C-alpha cells in the first residue's frame, strides 16, 4: 500500500482545525440552536410584564383606595346639605344661582373639603354646585358660571401646615376667601368659569349627567357614578390635571352638584417611574384610556423620554401583536415592545365602564433586549475570537512543532555518510531518542570504519580503497589513496567523480600493459626523492656523518625516522625508484569499488624472475628462449615493424682453444667481451642474444634497405677488431667470429627460415675462411640441401 505522505505541520494543523470547527459548531449550535437567545428575550418581556403589573397594582390601589375615597365626605356633605335645607338657610332652587345663595353651604363644606384634600393626598379637591341639566344648556350653547370651591395643594407629599400655607384657591367666592385663610392662586376666580371657557368641565358634566340619567329603580349609588376624567386645565398655561368626581345626590334623588379630587399629571408622573422598566432613560410609562377598540389607547400621561423619541407628541397609541408579543406602532419603524395592564376603576354596569384605563410599559427593543443582544454579540464575538485564535494558534503550534523536525530532515540531507553526524534536537522525545540512537550508531560505524582504516594503516599494508558512487557523484577514498598514487596529499575523504577521474587520467602515463586481468589497472609510478642533508650528531663512531641521505617516500616514514633508518644510497644523484600500484575494480550496481594495492615488491620480484628467465647470466644478453619468443611474437604480430631486417648468426672462433689453453675463466671473459662488443657497436634497437656457448644471434630490423644494415654490420666488425682480451700470458687475443646473415624479406619471411638460412650462412663461413660475416647464399643452400 502506498502511503501518501504530508508535511508534519499539515498533519497537525488539519486535525486541529477540524477539531476547532467541530467544537465551535457544537457550542454555537447548542447556544443559538437551543433558542437561548429567544429564551432570554422572553425573559426580558416577562420581567417587563411583572414590573408593569406591579406598578399597575400600586397605581390602581392608590386610585381606588386612597385618592378616590370620597364616600365619607360625600355622606358628610349630603348631611350638611340636608341640614341646611331643613333649616331653610339654603334652597335647592336658588342654590346654584350665585355664591351668596350657597354661601352657607360652601362655608360649611369648606372644612370637610380641606380635610378630604389632606387625607386623600391629592393635588386638589373641589365641589361644584349645580342644579341645571347641563346637556340641555350645552345644546343651547348656554354656559353658566357655577359656584363652588376648588382648592389645590401643589405638593401633597410634604407634610401640611396647620395654617394651610401650602394650599391655594382656584375658585372660591370672595366671602369664603376671607374666611378660609387660604391664599389665592394667581388664576383665582370667584366661580367656576364655565362661561369664559364656553364649556362645562367634564369633571362636572359627566358624573352630573350620569346621575341625572339614572332612573329611580337603579341600584347604583353615587359612587358608582364616579368619573375619572381625561386631562384638563383650569385656565390657559395651567398645569394639566385629571380628576375623579362623584355626583352629590340628596335622599330624594336631587342632584345638586359634584364633589371631586384632582390629580396633577406631574404628581402622577412621579408615581410612574419609567426608570424601573429597564435601565435609566430606557422606558416609558403610558397611562391612557381605551375607549372603543382595544388596540387604540388615548394618551393621558407619559413618563420617560422614550415614548416621545419614537412617537413624538401623538395623542393616540396603537398596539399590535406580532409573534405573541405586543408592540406599539411608531414612526421610527422600530420594534417597540409594550405590556398593557388594565386598571379596573369602574364596576360593571356603571355608566363609565366603557372607559378602560390602562397602564402600559413601553420599552424599545434595543433597550429591552440589550442584555440578550449583548450576550448574543458576545457569544458571536467569542466564537469568532475562538475560531481565529484556534486557527492562528493551530498554525503557530503546528509550525512550532514541525519546524525542528523539518530542520532535522534538511540537515540530515546535507550530511555526508562518513562524517560525524550530529542531529539537531526537535524537542519531540521519540524523534530525539531516535536521533541520539542514530548518532550513536553513526559513531559506532565511523569507529568501525576508522578501525579498519587504522588497522590498515597500522598494518602498513599499503592499501587504499575507493568507492565510486555514480548516483551521488561521490567517490569515497581512504586516507592513503593519494600517497599511494604518488600524488599530493589531500585531506578529503571524498571526491566528485570528475575529480577522481581527472586524478586517474593524470596517471595514465604510468599505466602498464600487463597480462593481468581486465578489471586490473597497473601503474608504475616514479617515487619522488627528496634529498636531505642530515648531520647525524650521534653516530656510534662519533664522526660527523655527511653522507647524503635520500628519503624514500615509499616507506611512508616520517621525517624523524630519517635519523634512525635512512638509506644510504649511491652518490649517483639521479637514481629513480619506482613503485607498482595495482588498482582492482569491482562493479556493483551503481558502485564501483576499487582496491589500490602497492605491489611494488611483488612486481619487482616478478621482474627479476622474468629477467633471470630471459637473460643469459654471463653476458646479460637475452637467452635463446626469450629471443625466440620475442622473434616469434614479432613475426606473428608485428611484421610491419620489420621492414628490411637481417638475422645474423654468430659463432665465436677459437673459444675452445681459449677454454682449453687458459681456462674457463678466460673463456667466459672471451664470451663476455664479445657480448659487450655486440651491445656496444650495434644500434639501440638491435636484438642480441646468446644462443648457446659461443653462438649468438643479432637481429637488425626496421631498416629501409640492406645497405643500411650492411653499414651497421661494418661498424660492428670495426668495433670488434678493436677489442681484445688480455691473456694471462700477457698477450692480447682479438675477438674472432664467424657470422652468417639471412635477409628479410629477401631470403625469407618466416623466422624459422631466417634462422635456418643464417645458420647455413654461418656454417659456410665457419667451414671456409672463418672470422668473416657471410651473407646467405640460397643457391648454395639449395645445392647443399639436395646433395
Amino acid at each position, binding site marked *: 500500500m502506498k502511503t501518501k505522505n504530508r508535511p508534519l505541520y499539515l498533519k497537525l494543523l488539519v486535525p486541529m482545525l477540524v477539531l476547532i470547527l467541530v467544537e465551535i459548531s457544537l457550542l454555537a449550535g447548542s447556544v443559538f440552536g437551543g433558542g437561548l437567545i429567544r429564551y432570554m428575550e422572553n425573559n426580558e418581556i416577562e420581567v417587563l410584564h411583572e414590573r408593569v403589573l406591579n406598578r399597575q397594582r400600586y397605581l390602581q390601589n392608590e386610585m381606588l383606595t386612597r385618592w378616590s375615597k370620597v364616600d365619607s365626605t360625600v355622606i358628610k356633605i349630603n348631611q350638611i346639605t340636608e341640614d341646611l335645607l331643613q333649616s331653610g338657610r339654603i334652597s335647592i332652587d336658588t342654590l346654584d344661582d350665585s355664591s351668596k345663595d350657597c354661601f352657607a353651604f360652601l362655608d360649611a363644606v369648606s372644612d370637610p373639603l380641606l380635610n378630604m384634600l389632606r387625607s386623600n393626598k391629592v393635588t386638589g379637591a373641589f365641589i361644584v354646585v349645580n342644579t341645571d341639566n347641563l346637556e340641555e344648556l350645552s345644546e343651547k350653547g348656554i354656559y353658566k358660571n357655577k359656584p363652588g370651591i376648588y382648592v389645590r395643594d*401643589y405638593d401633597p407629599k410634604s407634610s401640611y401646615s396647620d395654617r394651610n400655607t401650602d394650599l391655594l384657591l382656584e375658585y372660591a367666592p370672595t366671602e369664603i376667601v376671607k374666611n378660609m385663610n387660604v391664599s*389665592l392662586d394667581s388664576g383665582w376666580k370667584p366661580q367656576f368659569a364655565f362661561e369664559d371657557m364656553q364649556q362645562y368641565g367634564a369633571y362636572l358634566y359627566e358624573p352630573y349627567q350620569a346621575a341625572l340619567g339614572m332612573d329611580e329603580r337603579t341600584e347604583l349609588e353615587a359612587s358608582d357614578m364616579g368619573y375619572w376624567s381625561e386631562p384638563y386645565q383650569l385656565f390657559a398655561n395651567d398645569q394639566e390635571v385629571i380628576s375623579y368626581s362623584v355626583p352629590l345626590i340628596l335622599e330624594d334623588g336631587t342632584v345638586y352638584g359634584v364633589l371631586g379630587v384632582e390629580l396633577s399629571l406631574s404628581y402622577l408622573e412621579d408615581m410612574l417611574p419609567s426608570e424601573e422598566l429597564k435601565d435609566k432613560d430606557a422606558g416609558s410609562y403610558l397611562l391612557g384610556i381605551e375607549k372603543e377598540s382595544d388596540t387604540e389607547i388615548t394618551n393621558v400621561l407619559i413618563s420617560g423620554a422614550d415614548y416621545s423619541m419614537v412617537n413624538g407628541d401623538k395623542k393616540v397609541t396603537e398596539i399590535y401583536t406580532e409573534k405573541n408579543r405586543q408592540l406599539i406602532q411608531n414612526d421610527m419603524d422600530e420594534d417597540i415592545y409594550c405590556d398593557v395592564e388594565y386598571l379596573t376603576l369602574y364596576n360593571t354596569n356603571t355608566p363609565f365602564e366603557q372607559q378602560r384605563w390602562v397602564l402600559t410599559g413601553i420599552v424599545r427593543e434595543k433597550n429591552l433586549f440589550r*442584555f440578550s443582544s449583548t450576550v448574543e454579540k458576545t457569544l458571536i464575538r467569542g466564537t469568532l475570537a475562538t475560531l481565529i485564535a484556534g486557527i492562528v494558534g493551530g498554525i503557530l503550534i503546528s509550525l512550532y512543532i514541525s519546524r525542528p523536525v523539518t530542520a532535522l530532515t534538511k540537515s540530515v540531507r546535507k550530511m555526508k555518510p562518513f562524517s560525524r553526524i550530529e542531529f539537531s534536537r526537535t524537542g519531540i522525545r521519540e524523534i530525539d531518542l531516535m536521533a541520539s540512537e542514530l548518532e550513536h550508531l553513526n559513531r559506532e560505524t565511523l569507529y568501525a570504519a576508522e578501525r579498519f582504516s587504522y588497522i590498515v594503516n597500522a598494518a602498513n599494508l599499503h592499501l587504499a580503497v575507493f568507492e565510486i558512487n555514480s548516483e551521488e557523484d561521490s567517490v569515497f577514498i581512504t586516507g592513503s589513496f593519494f600517497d599511494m598514487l604518488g600524488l599530493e596529499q589531500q585531506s578529503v575523504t571524498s571526491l566528485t567523480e570528475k575529480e577522481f577521474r581527472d586524478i586517474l587520467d593524470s596517471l595514465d602515463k604510468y599505466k602498464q600493459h600487463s597480462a593481468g586481468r581486465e578489471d586490473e589497472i597497473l601503474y608504475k609510478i616514479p617515487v619522488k626523492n627528496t634529498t636531505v642533508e642530515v648531520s647525524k650528531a650521534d653516530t656510534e663512531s662519533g664522526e660527523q656523518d655527511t653522507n647524503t641521505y635520500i628519503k624514500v617516500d615509499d616507506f611512508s616514514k616520517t621525517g624523524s625516522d630519517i635519523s634512525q633508518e635512512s638509506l644510504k644510497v649511491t652518490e649517483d644523484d639521479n637514481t629513480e625508484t619506482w613503485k607498482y600500484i595495482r588498482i582492482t575494480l569491482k562493479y556493483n550496481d551503481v558502485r564501483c569499488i576499487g582496491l589500490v594495492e602497492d605491489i611494488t615488491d611483488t612486481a619487482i620480484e616478478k621482474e627479476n624472475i622474468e629477467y633471470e628467465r630471459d637473460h643469459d647470466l654471463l653476458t646479460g644478453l637475452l637467452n635463446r628462449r626469450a629471443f625466440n619468443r620475442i622473434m616469434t611474437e614479432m613475426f606473428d604480430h608485428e611484421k610491419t615493424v620489420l621492414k628490411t631486417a637481417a638475422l645474423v648468426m654468430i659463432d665465436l672462433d677459437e673459444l675452445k682453444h681459449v677454454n682449453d689453453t687458459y681456462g674457463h675463466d678466460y673463456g667466459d671473459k672471451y664470451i663476455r667481451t664479445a657480448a659487450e662488443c655486440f651491445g656496444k657497436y650495434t644500434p639501440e634497437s638491435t636484438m642480441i642474444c646468446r644462443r648457446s656457448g659461443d653462438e649468438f644471434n643479432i637481429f637488425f630490423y626496421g631498416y629501409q634497405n640492406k645497405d643500411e644494415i650492411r653499414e651497421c654490420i661494418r661498424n660492428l666488425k670495426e668495433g670488434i677488431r678493436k677489442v681484445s682480451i688480455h691473456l694471462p700470458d700477457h698477450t692480447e687475443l682479438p675477438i674472432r667470429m664467424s657470422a652468417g646473415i639471412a635477409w628479410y624479406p629477401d631470403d625469407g619471411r618466416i623466422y624459422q627460415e631466417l634462422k635456418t638460412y643464417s645458420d647455413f650462412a654461418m656454417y659456410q663461413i665457419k667451414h671456409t675462411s672463418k672470422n668473416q660475416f657471410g651473407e646467405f647464399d640460397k643457391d648454395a643452400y639449395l645445392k647443399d640441401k639436395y646433395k
Partner: protein
Amino acid sequence: MKNYRKKLLCAGLSAVLLLSGCGMSSELASVSESSHDEPTLVTVWNYYNGQQLKAFDKLVSEFNDTVGNEKGILVESHSLGTVYDLEQSVLDTVNHKVGANELPNIFAAYVDTAYAVDKLGYVADLKPYLSQEEIDKFVNSYIEEGELSGDGSIKIFPVAKSTEIFMLNKTDWDKFAEATGADINDLKTIEGLTKTAQDYYEWTDSQTPKANDGKAFFGRDAMANYFLIGARQLGTEIFSVEDGKAKLNFDKDVIRKIWDNYYVPFVKGYFAASGKFRSDDIKTGNIIAFTGASSGATFLPDQVTVDDTERYPIEMEAMECPEFEGGEHYAVQQGAGMVVTKTEDEPEEQIEASVEFLKWFTQDERNIQFSLDSGYMPVTKEANNLETIEKDTSLNETDRTFSIVKAAIDTVNHNTLYTTKAFENGKNARSILEYSMSDKAAEDRKTVVENLQKGQTLEQASAEFAGDECFEKWYQETKEALEKLIK
C-alpha cells in the same frame, strides 16, 4: 530572529484574546448594570409658582441644553409649591423622617432653614469653589447673609433677592384722594400711613348708610419684617447676633411704637388681613394698599373681584415702603438663596456641578432676565441698575412690573439692606414676632366686630385694646417667650 518574532506574535495574540475577553465581560457587566455615559445629575428644589416657576424652568432647560450638555451636567428642578413645603421637606429629609425624600443637591432656603440644615452638617461651603473676583460680583450684604457661621464661608448662594415695597391700588386711591384730598406723600412715613388709613376708613364708612362698615386701607404681609426693620429704623436691633450668639433687645418704647402703628389700627379696622397674602386682600377689595415682598410683583392683581359678578380692573403702583419718621433708612433683605448640600458619600463632582449651575444662573444677563420674569431682584452689583436693566432687556415704562422693579431698586439703593443673621431658635423667635401680635390683632378684631354689632361705637368697641394695659400684657408675654428662646 525568527524565534523573537514568533514569541511576539504569540504574545500579541494572547493579549488580543485577553483584552477582547475582558472587554466583552466588562461590557456584559456594564449592560447588566445598565449605564450609559451618565451626566452628573443636579436636583434643585424651589418654591416657585406660576410665572416664577416658568421663568426658572426656562432657565434650567437653557442650561441643560448648553453648558450642561457640554459639561455633562443635567439639572432637574422640582417645585414644592410653597416655601413652607420646601423647608418642611428639607427638614424632614435631614432629620431622616420616614417617607422623606432624598436630599436634593440644591434647595432654596431662607437663612433659618439653611442654618438648621447646616447644623446637621449637610451644607457645603461654596467659598472654595469661587474665586474672589466671582464673589465680589455680588452685592456684599447678599454674600454676607450666606455666611452662616461668621467664618467667611458661603453657605447660601444668592440667586434672587427681594425687598419690601409698598403697593397701592392706584385706581381706588385716586378716587379716595380726589374725594378727600389725601396726599400720597403722607404714605412715605408709617405714622402718615396710619393716619391716612384712618381717613380712608372714615371716608368709606361715610359712603354707606351703615355705620362702622368702613373699609381697611392697608395690610402687611410680613409682620416679623415690620418688627425687625422698624426697630432697626428706630435705632435698635431686636436680635443681634455676634459670633453665633444672639442677644435680645426688646426695647419697650420701640415696640410700643410698632404696636401703635399696627395693632391699634388693626383692631380698629383701619388695617386688615384675611386670606394668606395681602395681595389676595387687594384682589377681593379688602384693602387697597399693602407692604409686601417685591417678589410678589408677578402675583399682583389687575382687578378687584367684589363678588360673583362684580369686578373692575385696577392699576397697582409700587413705591418705597413707608419708614418711621425720623428713623434711619433701613430696608429688609429677603429672598431665599440656594443652598448646596453635601453628604458623606457624595462625589465632589456633584458640588462642582451645582456651583457651575448657580454661577451660570447668576450671570448678569440671565440674572436680570430671571428677575424681570419673576419679580425678584438681580443679585450682582452690575445688574442692580435700572439703566442697565432697561438697556439689556425689553423692560420699559409701560410694563406692569416696571414700577415694582424701579421701587425695588430704589429701595436697594436708598437704604441699607438689613436682615438678621441666623441663630439658635432663630426660626421660632421670628415666628413669635410674625404671629404673636398679628394673631392677637385678628383675634381682638373679631371681638371688636362683635362689639360693633352689639351696637357699640368704634371707640367703645376697641377701648380695651387700644390702651396701655393691653400693650403691657402683650409686651411682657412676648418678651418672656422670646427670652426663653434666646438665653
